[in-house]
C-alpha cells in the first residue's frame, strides 16, 4: 500500500513525531485511514445509503400524507385506531427507520463540512448518533404502544 511505503520512507514511528510535523507518523495501520491520512473506504457506501434511504423516505412520506388526508378525522381516536391496523403501523415503523437513518446521514455531512475541529466534530457526530437513535426509539415505541394496545385505547 502507498501509505505504508510513504511512512517507511519518512521514518515513521519516531518517538515524539507529531502528526502535524510528520503526517507519516499516523500513516500506518487501520487507524491512519480515518485520521486525515486517506480514505476510510466508506465514502461510496455513505453516498449510496443516502440515496437508498432518500427513496424509501420519499415513498413512505407520500404514503403518510395520502393516508392522513384520507383519514375521516385526525383526532386522537381517529389516529390511534388507524395506527392499530398493521397496514398502517408497519409502514409507519418503516418510515421512522428510513427517516432517522436518512436524517442522521444528512446531518452528518453538514457536521463534517462545517465543524473542523477534530474534538468538536467527534462530539457533534456522537451526539447526532445518540439523538437520531433516541428519536427513532421514542417514535417506534409510541407506534408499538398504540398498535399493541389491548381492549381499545383509553378515551
Amino acid at each position, binding site marked *: 500500500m502507498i501509505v505504508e511505503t510513504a511512512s517507511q520512507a519518512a521514518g515513521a514511528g519516531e518517538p515524539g513525531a507529531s*502528526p*502535524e510535523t510528520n*503526517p507519516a507518523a499516523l500513516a500506518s495501520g487501520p487507524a491512519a485511514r480515518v485520521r*486525515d491520512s486517506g480514505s476510510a473506504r466508506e465514502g461510496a457506501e455513505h453516498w449510496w445509503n443516502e*440515496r437508498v434511504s*432518500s427513496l424509501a423516505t*420519499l415513498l413512505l*412520506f407520500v404514503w403518510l*400524507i395520502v393516508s392522513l*388526508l384520507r383519514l375521516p378525522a*385526525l*383526532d*386522537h*381516536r381517529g*389516529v*390511534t385506531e388507524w*395506527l392499530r391496523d398493521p397496514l398502517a403501523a408497519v409502514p*409507519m415503523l418503516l418510515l*421512522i427507520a428510513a*427517516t*432517522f437513518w436518512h*436524517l442522521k446521514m*444528512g*446531518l452528518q455531512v*453538514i457536521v463534517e463540512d462545517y465543524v*473542523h475541529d*477534530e474534538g468538536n466534530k467527534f462530539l457533534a457526530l456522537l451526539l447526532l448518533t445518540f439523538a437520531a437513535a433516541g*428519536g427513532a426509539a*421514542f*417514535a417506534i*415505541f*409510541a*407506534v408499538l*404502544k*398504540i398498535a399493541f394496545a389491548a381492549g381499545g*385505547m*383509553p*378515551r
Partner: protein
Amino acid sequence: MSRNPSRPRSPHLTVYKWGPHMLVSILHRVTGAGLATVGAAALVWWLVAAASGKEAYESFAKLATSWIGIVVGVGLTWAFFQHLLSGLRHFVMDIGAGFEIQGNKFWATMTLAGSILLTAALWLYIVMVRGA
C-alpha cells in the same frame, strides 16, 4: 484538520454570480437540516402524544392548529417538497445528466416553482376539502 498553506485554494462561493442552481443547492441543505430537526421533533411529538392518551394528544393538536403551528406546518411542507424535488434533481445529476447550464438552471427553477405549487395545493386541499 491540518492544511498545507502552500497549496493553492480553489475560488470559493463569493466569486460566482448567484443563480437558481446555487439557491437550490443550498436550499437542499437548509431544508434538509430543518426537516431533520424541526420536522423530526414534530413527528416524534405527534406519535408520542398519540400514544400517551387523549389529553396529551389534544394539547399537541391545540398547538399544531394554532397560528404558529400552522406557520411551522406550512414551512415544513414547503421544506419537504423543496427537498423532495431537488432530491429528485440530484438523482438525475447522479447519473451524469442535466449538467448543461441552461437545462440545469431550468430544472433548478422548476424545483422552486414546484415546491411552492405543491405546498399551495396541499394546504388549499386541507382548507377547502377538509375544512381545517
